[in-house]
């Protein structure tokens, strides 16, 4: 008897191919949109977290001035740092593992006919370990090179690609402003950061070389500080602030003229942004779900007259109300299942494509898959089944005469 009902339902589905197709389409759109959007949204959120972890949760940045997020190094009116300040942070604080001095500017790097505008950074070998850069080929700086400010440089992957393409850069000389410097090393790529900025787009040279030959001063723009494992960044931050006030002779009650930024603060800020993003995507997805649901509803309601007459005919030839209702219920369930499965597959494919396009991890969420599927299926079943139930309970003649 159940099999008979399923067969009746399948016949009805095939007989009303267009109506069935439109119903399935409604479910597919709703389910696929939600799954794709939430998958991409959660992938992005995960990417941010991963980036921040890569950055190191034990990392602090020390910058001159108060409004670090707005001004940034160099734009501050507060006095800049020097190499000695950095080394005192490194040597005098036991909580600090590595403190690396950095200065940077935008400049054009030229090799042969190729040129590329990039970040030119002066630092020393401490930076590589603090920020987790690895040399893929070549070497890092010799102490003598750092001390004398020799014109040597290490290239990020993007700069290498732009200037050299397939050629081997090691031992070649590139020009930055008036400085000619020899390429001694190449860094392993880190790829795009969370906001899509290219982390590999920079040239590193010894701090002294940068100060003398590029910037023409002896300033340090900021310190990149890695604290020892097991030390809270809160504590490290307090100690650095105390020492920096001493170094910069800031009196009691005076404001700091520098900022110590905790990566955790940045992480919190970033995940706040991705939360908003995910929320936004979810809202769009919810609208798609609703639109799909309304589509299903429309098809079902538009066909109510025809379906009611069909039910009248079936009752007249001897069908019992429960037989008619189970046929329509099975029909609605089958359509919702087909639509739901296609929607899930399509949604996952779109999510995968989207995740790849944005280079974020592919993170399907079973809860969302179930939710989207459940909602669309419920709409399909409710609007497919309940009008049928109402019709099946009418006097057969009223169902037959339904206008």
């Amino acid at each position, binding site marked *: 008897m159940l099999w008979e009902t399923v067969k009746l339902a399948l016949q009805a589905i095939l*007989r009303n191919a267009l109506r069935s197709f439109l119903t399935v389409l409604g479910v597919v759109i709703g389910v696929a949109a939600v799954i794709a959007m939430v998958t991409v949204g959660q992938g992005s959120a995960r990417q941010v977290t991963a980036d921040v972890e890569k950055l190191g949760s034990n990392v602090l940045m020390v910058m001159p001035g108060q409004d670090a997020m707005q001004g940034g190094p160099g734009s501050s009116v507060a006095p800049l740092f020097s190499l000695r300040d950095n080394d005192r942070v490194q040597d005098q604080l036991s909580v600090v593992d590595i403190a690396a001095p950095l200065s940077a500017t935008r400049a054009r790097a030229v090799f042969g006919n190729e040129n590329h505008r990039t970040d030119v950074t002066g630092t020393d070998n401490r930076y590589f370990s603090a920020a987790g850069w690895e040399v893929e080929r070549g070497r890092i700086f010799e102490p003598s090179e750092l001390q004398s400010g020799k014109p040597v440089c290490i290239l990020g992957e993007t700069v290498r690609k732009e200037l050299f393409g397939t050629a081997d850069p090691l031992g070649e000389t590139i020009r930055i402003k008036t400085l000619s410097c020899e390429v001694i090393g190449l860094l392993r790529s880190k790829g795009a950061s969370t906001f899509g900025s290219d982390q590999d787009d920079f040239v590193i040279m010894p701090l002294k070389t940068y100060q003398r030959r590029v910037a023409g001063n002896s300033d340090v723009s900021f310190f990149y500080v890695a604290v020892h494992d097991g030390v809270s960044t809160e504590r490290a931050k307090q100690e650095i602030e105390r020492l920096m006030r001493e170094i910069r002779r800031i009196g009691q009650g005076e404001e700091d003229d520098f900022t110590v930024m905790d990566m955790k603060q940045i992480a919190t800020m970033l995940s706040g942004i991705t939360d908003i993003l995910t929320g936004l995507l979810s809202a769009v997805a919810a609208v798609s779900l609703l639109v799909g649901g309304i589509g299903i509803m429309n098809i079902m309601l538009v066909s109510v007259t025809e379906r009611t007459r069909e039910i009248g005919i079936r009752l*007249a030839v001897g069908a*019992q109300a429960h037989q008619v209702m189970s046929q329509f219920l099975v029909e609605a369930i089958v359509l919702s299942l087909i639509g739901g499965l296609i929607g899930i597959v399509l949604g996952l494919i779109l999510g995968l494509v989207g995740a790849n396009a944005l280079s974020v991890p592919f993170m399907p969420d079973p809860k969302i898959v179930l939710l989207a599927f459940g909602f669309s299926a419920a709409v399909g079943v409710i609007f497919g089944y309940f009008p049928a139930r109402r019709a099946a*309970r009418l006097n*057969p003649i009223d169902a037959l005469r339904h206008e």
Partner: protein
Amino acid sequence: MAETPLIQLKGISRIYGAGETEVRALDGVDLTIREGEFVAIMGPSGSGKSTAMNVIGCLDAPTGGEYFFSGVEVDNLSADQRALLRRHYLGFVFQGYNLLPRTSALDNVILPLIYKGLSRAEREALAMQALEKMGLSDRAGHDPSELSGGQQQRVAIARALAGRPRVVLADEPTGNLDTKKSAEIMEVLQHLNRSEGLTIIMVTHEKDMAQYADRLIWMVDGRVERDAPTRKVG
């Protein structure tokens, strides 16, 4: 010993609405129909002839009175039991054919047989047989939209007959057909009555069609006004 009449209505009423807007479609109908009769019900529009037919066919429930089918009081039956009664004893032919759209003639005729729980082979055999009787075996695979009105009505008759009912109820079966097609349909019904002893109850408003029946019931204002054998002289 008097045989139990097939259909017996005692003081049947069917009232729509209530109070000011109350409409008495049937107002105390007494009627007895025996097995093997061919009865025509006539009357002006609004006289309740279709309502009477629907009550007899268990498509509509009366608001008052008693209805016995083969001695069983129908008013005491549940909706499901009435469905079983329709399934096993009644066949319907409607003015508007009421075939399922986008469904072949054969599948339309099979429809009542599905609910009778017959096997696929039995269903197809019975349905083909019924279509053949209506001269439509070559149209079995056609959708209603591909058939003429007369053909559609013959498919509907085949559907009514396929389940081997004891009564066929026809509500203005020729209402949508021209004279020639109407005569064809009526001859089919008459033949079924004469040769197979099938009880036929037909509502019509055309005197010519009523002439095919053996007995004419004339209704006015929800009551049986006249009940007599049809005069073959017209």
